């Protein structure tokens, strides 16, 4: 780990921090309720929701975190929080999501600023999704914020919302945003048919984050911080993989592209995932070139394939079905199938560049 020295600092502050962390999962009993509460405020994750504080005041033991490369969600600004029960740290795993204990909640809030060029101004909260770890596995629930921004209400059947924002070029974008229904959550969050978190893998958490809300001292490595503060056990001293930030042009194109595909596609496109039947496996660790899409013919792509014969034709992005599918916004063609209505042209450009370098 790069940040052992800063972790030392955290130890010094540890005693103070313990006081801030909750005593047990009982502090948030709603996490383990058989049916998810109707209102987000009932969990108690955030204070003063009814006064319009939104998610700006996390309660004790609700820790914000960040990912190196996130899943694209129509340019939504996403804020992630985790609650890990005191005394039961998550277990480190090298390649999958960390093994969180019963009573854990992963809380992700989707918001849109009026203008993407000013992401902190005029932000409208859209939905907060909660993944709760029960004895029988993870349970998913999505809460939609009201217009007054004073509460978010459970939506089992999902919801479509007409949204608009000004994009990075100053153009107005209007689109239909989809809050997923409970089954759609599982459409992505499933391994061997069981709901599974996607984001919090060690490699994707392995980056600096400013825990300023809880602890002063500037940014430090998240995994170290989690380990020092009882959220994570078994973190090795060395050899922890580090996912690229796909926007970081100092990283290799191959690393950026494969990390982006891993985060955005591999939750389905893996042998244990909902798209196993495609034979296209986009996990970062997949080494079989055909399984990764190189000169792989589609099997059930339908019109998603268009006139193209192969998922990835090295050197030829225009002949690669992958580019066609990440560019499209048409249901039946676009990939991922769920969770987006817009195209991130920066992603398409990056993947095109990457395919140009393949041979």
């Amino acid at each position: 780990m790069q940040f052992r020295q800063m972790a030392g600092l955290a130890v010094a502050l540890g005693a103070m921090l313990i006081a801030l962390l909750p005593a047990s999962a009982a502090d948030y009993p709603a996490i383990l309720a058989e049916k998810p509460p109707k209102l987000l405020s009932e969990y108690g994750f955030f204070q003063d929701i009814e006064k319009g504080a939104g998610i700006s005041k996390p309660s004790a033991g609700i820790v914000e975190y960040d990912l190196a490369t996130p899943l694209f969600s129509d340019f939504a600004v996403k804020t992630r929080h985790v609650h890990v029960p005191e005394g039961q740290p998550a277990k480190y795993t090298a390649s999958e999501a960390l093994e969180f204990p019963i009573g854990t909640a992963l809380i992700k809030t989707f918001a849109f600023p009026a203008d993407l060029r000013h992401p902190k101004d005029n932000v409208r909260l859209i939905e907060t999704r909660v993944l709760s770890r029960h004895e029988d596995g993870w349970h998913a629930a999505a809460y939609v914020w009201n217009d007054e921004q004073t509460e978010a209400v459970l939506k089992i059947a999902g919801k479509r919302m007409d949204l608009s924002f000004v994009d990075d070029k100053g153009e107005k974008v209007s689109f239909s945003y989809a809050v997923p229904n409970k089954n759609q959550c599982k459409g992505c969050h499933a391994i061997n048919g069981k709901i599974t978190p996607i984001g919090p893998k060690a490699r994707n958490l392995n980056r600096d984050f400013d825990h300023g809300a809880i602890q002063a001292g500037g940014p430090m490595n998240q995994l170290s911080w989690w380990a020092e503060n009882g959220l994570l056990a078994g973190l090795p001293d060395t050899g922890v993989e580090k996912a690229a930030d796909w926007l970081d042009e100092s990283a290799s194109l191959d690393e950026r592209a494969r990390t982006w595909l891993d985060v955005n596609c591999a939750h389905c496109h893996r042998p244990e995932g909902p798209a196993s039947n495609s034979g296209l496996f986009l996990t970062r660790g997949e080494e079989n070139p055909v399984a990764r899409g190189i000169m792989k013919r589609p099997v059930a792509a339908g019109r998603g394939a268009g006139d193209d014969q192969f998922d990835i034709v090295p050197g030829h992005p225009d002949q690669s079905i992958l580019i066609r599918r990440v560019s499209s916004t048409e249901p039946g063609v676009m990939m991922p199938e769920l969770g987006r209505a817009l195209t991130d042209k920066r992603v398409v450009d990056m993947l095109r560049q990457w395919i140009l370098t393949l041979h």
Partner: protein
Amino acid sequence: MRTFLVAAPLAVLLSAGTAFAADIAVRPGPNAAEKLTEALIDAKQGDTIWLGFGRYELTDGLSLDVDDVSVRGMGPDSSILSFKNQEGSGEGLLVTSDRVVLEGFAVEDAKGDGIKSKGSDQITFSNLRVEWMNGPDEKNGAYGVYPVSSKNVLIDHVTVRGASDAGIYVGQSDGIVVRNSLAEYNVAGIEIENSFRADVYKNIARHNTGGILIFDLPNLPQQGGHDIRVFDNESVENDTPNFAPKGNTVAMVPMGMGIMVMANRNVHVFNNRLDKNATTHVLVAAYPNDYDDDNYMFVPRGVYVHDNDYGEGGYAPDGEVGDTISKYSGKPVPDIVWDGVTRIPEWLSWTAPENRVYVDEKEGTSFVNIKMLSQLILPWSTTPDTDISAYKGSLPEPAPVELPQDKTS
């Protein structure tokens, strides 16, 4: 309520401890989409969700992930799920749970596939209609009824029209019955791909590009399709020009293909009626493309074609495949065509009896073995073999496929 009485004891048996099986009715109307989505999510084991008379306008795909649930409508022309304005999801209805019965409704104009099941055990599609109402169009969804990676699949009395790939498509599944169904105006009528143990019988496949396809493809989690019986079907007048997007495997299927067997092991084609298929009635072929997969067998192993009824055919061979065949066979193309592709070791020596292609048809049936070498479209003999009597013989027939949910057969 007959079905309710059947379902309730089953549910008690399967999920002791849950509440009684319930009937949940969802009627068309302004909030029907949300109610139906919620009903499918909230369903408990043993429940039946009833669809009323009328149209349900849906903007997003539906999905069911609860075991032992039935979704029943008032009939395939009475309860209609319309996805004409679909904005999201890859299919109309997705089932990912076990022991599910879908019966008596229609899915229209899905943007992707019509009804898909993934990883289901004991999935029944009965008395359904899946249709793209604008007729054949490459912008239509790929598959009508689409069980994949599933076990114990029953497709009975289903109608599919307008799919831009296959109307009824069963992929990478095990234990399959497709019967009494109608597939028309699709690219492929019925397709069984990379699947084990399938009985396809008493279906009508007409006005598709190709009627019935039995395919096996490389680089997939399940391959080596085997033990398939295709019998008592009508595959006739398959006269719709191929409208599949060119990237699809079925884009190579020529217009006027009756039954096509590509790769696979132990496939039995018998008692079918074939008529007015302009390319050929029966084609047995190797996988024609390059591939990189050591575990894949690209030539058909053990195919037995017998006692079929052949009408007029082969009079207008279509596309690249039709051209290649007719170049060597002449026109009209014979009733049965085998590309004759052999693995090189076998070409040099012989093919074991269980791996051969056998043809036993009534007198007057025409046949050609084009004798192509390996995967190259390149005949090693300029004299195709048309002596049907040299291919006489038989293979032991696989046992009928029995499905736990199919008590009536």
